[in-house]
Each structure stands twice: as C-alpha cells, then as structure tokens.
C-alpha cells in the first residue's frame, strides 16, 4: 500500500467558496493509506509547492493526490514539484475539484460531497500507480510551414535563420498571400508590397528554405519530432526549373477571358499567367480550367513562344514524401461570401464592393492602375459609403459571432486615402463601435475624422438600392436620431473574415483541434497561444483568430521560436504512459496491431518454457514505446487482456469506477 499525501487547494475562493476544503481534507485523511492530508490557499504557489515537497520528505510519501484545478492546468506543475522532492512524477494524481466541481455547483454540501468522491477516486487510482520513466525519441531537424502568406514567410525565415531547414507549402502559384493584394498598411500608410516583396525574395533566396508553390499537403502521419508528410505538387504544366518568368507566354495566350482572381475578378487575365509582377517563384502557371490546349488539344501558342521550352502539357500531379520534426499552420483567412447580406445589394451592383476589392481598386498595380474608378462605368465616385461589421458580430445563424478585428482600422485607412487622393469626395463610415486598441491606432482613426473630414456616423446601413446609376443608401444616425438617405456612388462593405476553407481538412489530417468557427485552437488561450494542443503542431497568423499584420508577424516569430526550441533538441522525452503487453498471456492474434494508428506494435516469435522442460515458441506482441502515443485502442481490442496501458491500467480505471460508485 502506498503512503499517500492529500493536498486540497482552495484556489483562493474559486474552490473554497463552494467546497468546504477543510472537510474534504479531513474526510480524505481517513481513506486507506492516507498518512497526511491538508488544505492550502494556493497549492500551485511557491509556498504551496514547498509544502508538498516538505510533506513528501517528512512523511515518506509514495503517492500524492492533489485536489485542485483541472489536470490539464497544473498536472505538469505538480509532477515537477514532486519529482524535485524525489518522488516519481507519475505517482501524482489530480482530483479536478474546480472545473468539474466548485465551478459548476452552487450548493456547498453537494459540491463538498462530490469533491470528496473525486478525491477518493484519485486516491484509489494512486494506490495502483507505478513509477514510470519516460523514454526518448529522435527529432527530425526540419520544419514544415503550411501557407506562404506573411505569417508563413516570417516563420520560415526565422526558423531558417536559426539554422534549420524549412519547407513552405503554398497552394497558390506564388507565396505572399493576402498581403500582396493590399495597397497600403495601417497605421503607417506604407506600401504593403514595398515591405512584403523583399521578404518574399529573402525566402526564395534563403538556401535553408524550400518553397513548394502550387502545392498542398495531402497526408500527415507520425507524431511530434517524426512527422511523415506527403505533399501534392499540383501540375502547373510549366517546368519550374526552366521557366525564366519572362512573361511572353502570358501576353501571347489567346484565351483572354479568364477572371483574374488576384484582382478578385475585377478584370481578366490569360489562361497562362503569373499572378503579379513580383511573384515568387516567378514562374508561369496554366489554368487547366480555361486552357484551350489542355481542354481540346488545339492551341499550343505558349509552347511555341517559350524560348526556354518550359511548357509541358503532359505534366502530372507529383507527390513528395518528406519528414519533419515540427509543423506550422499558417493557412490564413478569407473574407466571407456576402450572399446572405443582399440588403447591401452586393450581387445587384458592381459598385458595391468588399474592402479587399477596394484595396485592388486603389492599388497602383490593380485593374484601374491606382485611380479610384467605379467598376460599373469607370467614373470617378463622389460619394462613398463604408459599412462596417458586415457579417461580423452576428448571431450564429446569420454570420460570424466574433469581431473580425481588422475592419475598423482598414476602413479608417480607406476613408483617409480617399479623402487624401480625392478631396472632392464625401466619405461616410457607418459603424457600430470603432475599435482601435493598438499602438498608434486611435490616433490614426482620430486623424481620419479630424484632419481628413471623414463623416463617421454611429449607426448601420439598413438597405442599399441601385437606382439610376446611383446607390440609394438608407441608414440610421443614432446620435442624431434620424434616418439618413444618401445617394452614393460606391458602397464598400467591410466583410467579416473567416479561416481559409483548406483549414478544416488540414486540421483533421493533423489531428489538431478547431473551434466552432474553424479557427485552430491554441494549447492555452493565454499561456500557450502559438501552439496547438497536438504536440509538434504550431499556429501562425490568422488561422488561429483574426489578426492584423503586426500581430501576425509577432505570432509568426513566436511560433518560429517554439519550433526552434523543439528542433534544437536531439531527443524528445516520450510519453511514458504507453501500452505494454503481458507476453505470458499474449495470443499473438494481431488484433492490437490492426487498431494501432501508429504502427507501434510488432510481433516476434519467442521461446517460452513449456511443461515438462519443453520449450514452446509463441508469437507475442511487442510495443515500441517511442512510437506508442498511449491511446489504448489495443487494450480493448485484446481479448485476453494481455495488453494494458501504463498510467491508465484496467485496474486503475476500475478502482476509480469503484470509488465513484461506492
């Protein structure tokens, strides 16, 4: 029998307000094997931890039960505490009396009773705990960054800078992401391309960075330190090694009516294209949906004009297998579709645009060469109405429940740029709240109002009706208590942003969790914001939540730091809670092998002593503890119960069941 110490935490008043901690400690002291039981204000504090260590030494404790917050919170803390006092860290059990007791119950008697039962279950389990020692597994010193936007580029550059190889997988023909489409950046109004393109070139020229453009991740196996990833390089029908990016083909291609997605369909491009002048890699790509040659076999103009002989109509999707120690997700965002918001007439008039389309209309490299013109008739707009929170902060059934965070600032930027370039325009911004937390953000917004004379109106636009070439905007001015009717030339909608659609299937491949909005979940919202709960998976940029560029870059570098920390290790400490077979009972039937997701189970023929001094050769299971992740699927598949899981053994779980049902 273990010598168990019980430590009941008050967690300030978090636990103590609804659980009679003193009574819990008192009752648990009478449990078998408990030699010491106490309670304290904050067990996780320095003083609390010292008390635990002292008690371990003083009472010769062989097992420790801590009644406190969720083990997801402080299990590791307390394991380390006990390890320092000479106790095996796996002789610690946590009874979750905060998240699963004090916080969900109001009645003190009920909560106290439940806390006692949870404590008993933990004591029952700890009696059956055995000291465990963790093994190690090697780390593949290479990182994968999925997504080549500013987040992915920054992460890759930082990792490469620390001396590790990095691969970037980007699904578009060029890296750069959303930032390449943006004109100017708030709050400094410097040109996005001027700060982004040098980074793109840096990434391309860095010998430690390999860019897989026009590629996707098609499968992920393995685990932290040892991921095996298959990358699908989509056929672009152009040999990347030969193409010089001269662009002749993109001028000669006879198929001219292809919507230019880089300009969000505001103008057209050819079937063979380079998305924009500074693309990296600067290589042409054939759009198979439009190419006449690929569709009907008749054309071949690009092939004829290409002096480098880079065109290859026979190219097929290629699959590349690569091993990585860490994976960074940087899949970014997209504006939402606006079909649910047709009161703003987005589908009815080309002059109602999203903010990202507006960026292209303002951009010198955009479809209008940087002159702001109405898409419908190419006229200069005189009255422009900006509508904020389109699809953001909505009830779940209608849009996104969250604030998209970047809209207030870019709308201020747009409004300011309009007034600066075209002082004859009237600019209205309809807002619910203007949110400007950030360095120099509120100053920027105030400048738009005070220096540039942008009309900020507290209220929403109710409807937009296209009429005689104008857009009739009906809106409310809540402070003026009036309904406004504005004849606008353009309406710009600050559409909510959502995670890229590729994120959900990727999350499934990575077994990384997501929230209900398809943003990746971080391991801890405050303390581990750039890590996924799945070990070895890191988060960079807007795939984790809405972010502006400075925040994205900061998070990208933070993720890189975490990756570097991981890749710097030669070995990782494995989870010691692995499956372990009892060879004497193993039938060798392969049931466990079939359900193991990691291929951690193999079989060997082993000699055993039979009756009457004979030897028997039996086929028995072997578990590779470096590969086993401890899910326990095998333990249930095994009919004889020969397979058991350390740390969550049959007996331990049953002891908990017994204690709870007692």
């Amino acid at each position: 029998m273990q010598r168990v110490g019980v430590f009941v935490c008050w967690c300030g008043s978090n636990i103590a307000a609804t659980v009679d901690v003193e009574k819990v400690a008192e009752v648990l002291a009478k449990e078998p094997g408990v030699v010491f039981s106490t309670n304290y204000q904050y067990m996780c504090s320095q003083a609390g931890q010292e008390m635990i260590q002292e008690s371990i030494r003083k009472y010769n404790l062989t097992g420790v039960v801590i009644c406190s917050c969720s083990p997801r919170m402080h299990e590791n803390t307390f394991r380390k505490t006990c390890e320092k006092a000479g106790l095996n860290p796996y002789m610690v059990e946590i009874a979750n009396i905060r998240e699963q007791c004090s916080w969900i119950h109001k009645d003190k008697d009920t909560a106290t009773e439940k806390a006692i039962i949870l404590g008993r279950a933990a004591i029952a389990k700890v009696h059956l705990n055995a000291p465990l020692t963790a093994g190690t597994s090697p780390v593949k010193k290479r990182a994968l960054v999925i997504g080549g936007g500013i987040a992915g580029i920054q992460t890759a550059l930082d990792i490469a800078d620390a001396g590790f190889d990095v691969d970037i997988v980007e699904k578009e023909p060029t890296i750069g992401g959303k930032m390449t489409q943006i004109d100017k950046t708030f709050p400094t109004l410097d040109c996005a391309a001027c700060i982004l393109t040098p980074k793109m070139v840096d990434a391309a020229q860095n010998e430690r960075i390999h860019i897989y453009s026009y590629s996707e991740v098609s499968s992920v196996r393995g685990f932290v330190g040892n991921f095996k990833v298959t990358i699908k390089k989509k056929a672009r029908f152009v040999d990347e090694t030969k193409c010089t990016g001269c662009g002749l083909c993109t001028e000669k291609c006879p198929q001219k009516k292809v919507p230019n997605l880089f300009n969000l369909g505001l103008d057209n491009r050819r079937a063979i294209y380079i998305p924009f002048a500074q693309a990296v890699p600067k290589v042409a790509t054939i759009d198979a949906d439009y190419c006449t040659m690929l569709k009907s076999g008749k054309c071949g103009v690009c092939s004829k004009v290409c002096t480098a002989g880079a065109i290859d109509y026979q190219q097929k999707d290629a699959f590349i297998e690569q091993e990585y120690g860490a994976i960074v997700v940087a899949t970014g965002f997209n504006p939402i579709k606006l079909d649910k918001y047709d009161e703003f007439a987005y589908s009815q008039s080309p002059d109602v645009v999203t903010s990202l389309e507006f960026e292209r209309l303002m951009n010198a490299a955009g479809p209008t060469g940087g002159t702001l013109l109405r898409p419908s008739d190419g006229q200069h707009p005189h009255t422009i109405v900006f509508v904020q929170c389109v699809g953001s902060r909505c009830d779940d059934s209608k849009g996104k429940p969250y604030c998209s965070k970047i809209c207030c600032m870019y709308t201020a930027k747009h409004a300011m740029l309009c007034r600066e370039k075209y002082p004859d325009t009237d600019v209205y911004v309809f807002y619910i709240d203007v949110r400007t937390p950030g360095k120099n953000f509120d100053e920027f917004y105030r400048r738009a109002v005070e220096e540039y004379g942008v009309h900020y109106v507290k209220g929403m636009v109710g409807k937009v009706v296209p009429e005689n070439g104008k857009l009739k905007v009906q809106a409310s001015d809540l402070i003026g208590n009036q309904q406004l009717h504005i004849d606008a030339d353009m309406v710009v909608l600050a559409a909510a942003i959502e995670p890229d659609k590729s994120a959900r299937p990727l999350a499934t491949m990575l077994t990384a969790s997501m929230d209900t909005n398809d943003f990746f979940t971080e391991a801890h919202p405050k303390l581990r914001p750039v890590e996924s709960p799945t070990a070895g998976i890191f988060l960079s940029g807007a795939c984790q939540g809405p972010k502006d560029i400075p925040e994205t870059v900061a998070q990208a570098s933070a993720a890189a730091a975490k990756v570097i920390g991981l890749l710097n290790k030669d070995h990782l400490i494995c989870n010691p809670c692995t499956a372990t077979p009892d060879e004497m009972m193993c039938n060798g039937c392969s049931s466990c092998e079939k359900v193991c997701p990691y291929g951690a189970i193999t079989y060997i023929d082993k000699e055993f002593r039979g009756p009457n001094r004979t030897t028997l050769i039996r086929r028995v299971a072997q578990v590779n503890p470096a590969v086993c992740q401890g899910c326990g699927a095998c333990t249930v598949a095994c009919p004889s119960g020969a397979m058991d899981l350390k740390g969550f053994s049959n007996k331990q779980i049953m002891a908990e069941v017994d204690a709870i049902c007692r």
Partner: protein
Amino acid sequence: MQERLKQKAIELLQNGTADRILGWKAGEFFYDLTPAVFTSKEQIEKDFVFNVFAGANLSKYLIAESRKGGKVAAFIKPCDSYSFQQLLKEHRILRDNVYVVGVQCDGMCDVAKLGCEGILGVQEDGESLTVDTLYGKKTVKKADAIADRCATCKSKKIVVFDELIGEQGEETEADRFGEVAKLEAMTPEERFDFWRGELSRCIRCNACRNVCPACSCEKCVFDNANSGVRNKAAADSFEENMFHIIRAFHVTGRCTDCGECSRVCPQNIPLHLLNRKLIKDINELYGPYQAGADMDTKPPLTNFTVDDCEPSIVHERGGQ
C-alpha cells in the same frame, strides 16, 4: 463414411504425411463423441469413430497440436473449417504442421431429439436412423433428429483443406436469425426475463469457454488477476450476466457461429443466440461479414468506416 475416414487416417500415418491423427472416439456414452489423437493403425482400428454424433469441432485442438512438433492430420467438417481459418488468421495454428482432410457433412444429430429412452446404440441407414433401446428397436427419420444448429447450417463449403473426402459444398441460404428476431421483437422486460431465466441456470462450468474455438486465449481475462474482473464462479446474477456479456463481446467478429457453445452447455442455455445477435448486428450495420470465410477481410471490430452509424442507432432503430 467411418470406414473411409479410418482408411484415410491409416494411409496418412503409413505414407508419412502425418505422425498423428486428430479424430473422434467414443466418450462416456456412445453418442458423446470426443476428440482424440491417434498415433497407430491399431488405435485407429479399435477406437476411431465417425457418425452422426461427431459434432465436436476439432479446430481448436490444433492450436496446441500444431505446436507439438511433427505433423498432425485432422478431419475438418465445413463449419469447423471456418473456425480453422479464423484461427489461422489470428496466427494461432501453425498451418505447416497440419494436414487438413476436409470431410463433407450432412448435419449432425442431437441425441435428445431422437425421442427415445434407454438408448443403447444408433445405426445410420440412409435417410433414417435405427435406434436400439432397452425397450426394443425404433426407426427415426434422420431429418427429425438433426441438431438445431445443423438445421440452420450456414455453409457446406470447406474453406480450407489439403484433401477432400466427399464433395465440396456451397454456402446455404438458411435463416439463422429467426430466433434472434423473435427476441428482438419482445419488450425489454420480456427479454430481460427470458435471459434471466436462461442465464440464472449457468453453473460456470466453463464448458462454453473451453469448447469455443474463438475463446482460445492463452489465459482468459476471467483468470487474470490484472484484468480486474477475475472470478472463478459466478456468485450472483450480475456475475452470470457479466461472464456471458464479456465472452460474447470478446468473440464478436471472431465467432464463426459453429454453435459448439450451446451444444456443450450442460444447462442447455442457448448461448449461441448472443453470438448470433452480434453477427446479425454486424451484418446489418457494417455489411455482411463471416468470420473465417477468408484470410484477408478485416474483422469488424478492428475496422471502421468514417460513415459508420452512431451508437444511438441502438435507441433509434425501433423494435421494442
């Protein structure tokens, strides 16, 4: 038939194909045939028996016999061949050490169904059986005495063999699930009462466990102290239930429906109904599956599809 098998057995011994023969001999009673290993012509001539009571499935004995060195020849009936192949699939039998003689079978008889008392002997005579009793001779149609499990025989196909005696057969279309469906149609209360009535007779003699080819663990969970459920004899109704639930669950997807469990139960508990219920569920929910039918198909419990039904189907699919 018996003579053909005897001759074959002697031939296999003499030509060196095998040094041991696994067959049947008379047990306590003549109708109670028991598996036996023969090593000489004399033994075979004296004791080897094969008749309408040779129901015992020999495949399980090959787990041990195939590991004893040398080569063993075994007579395998169609339903035994499924068990044999299932055990091969689970790496339990060393195939190289076994010579399989497939024996076609027209169904075995149930002595209780002869409807006679004081039976001294039975002679097979084409389609009828001549029963010699204390009270004189009596003729019974073989079809009337056939064992329940054979009346709903799933297959006459011998799925694995080295040589055949008799013709190769085909899978049958017999309706095996009538009784299961009848129970499913009852209310939970009625089902509970039914099973309580049946399982309360269990004396935990472990005959079902010992005879079952799927229940062939080196050491059973019920004998294993670390499993947390070790128990020798059921002390109360819960443990009666527990043993049979766990046993049925452990053979799920591995049970070939040979029916030996019900045959050997001294208390006549229809244990095969539990297994058949699970086979029926597997067929209905995950597509037809027959354990032991081949070497490659993944057993249903170590397999899945992403579109599998949810466990709530048990609540939803109606019935009582």
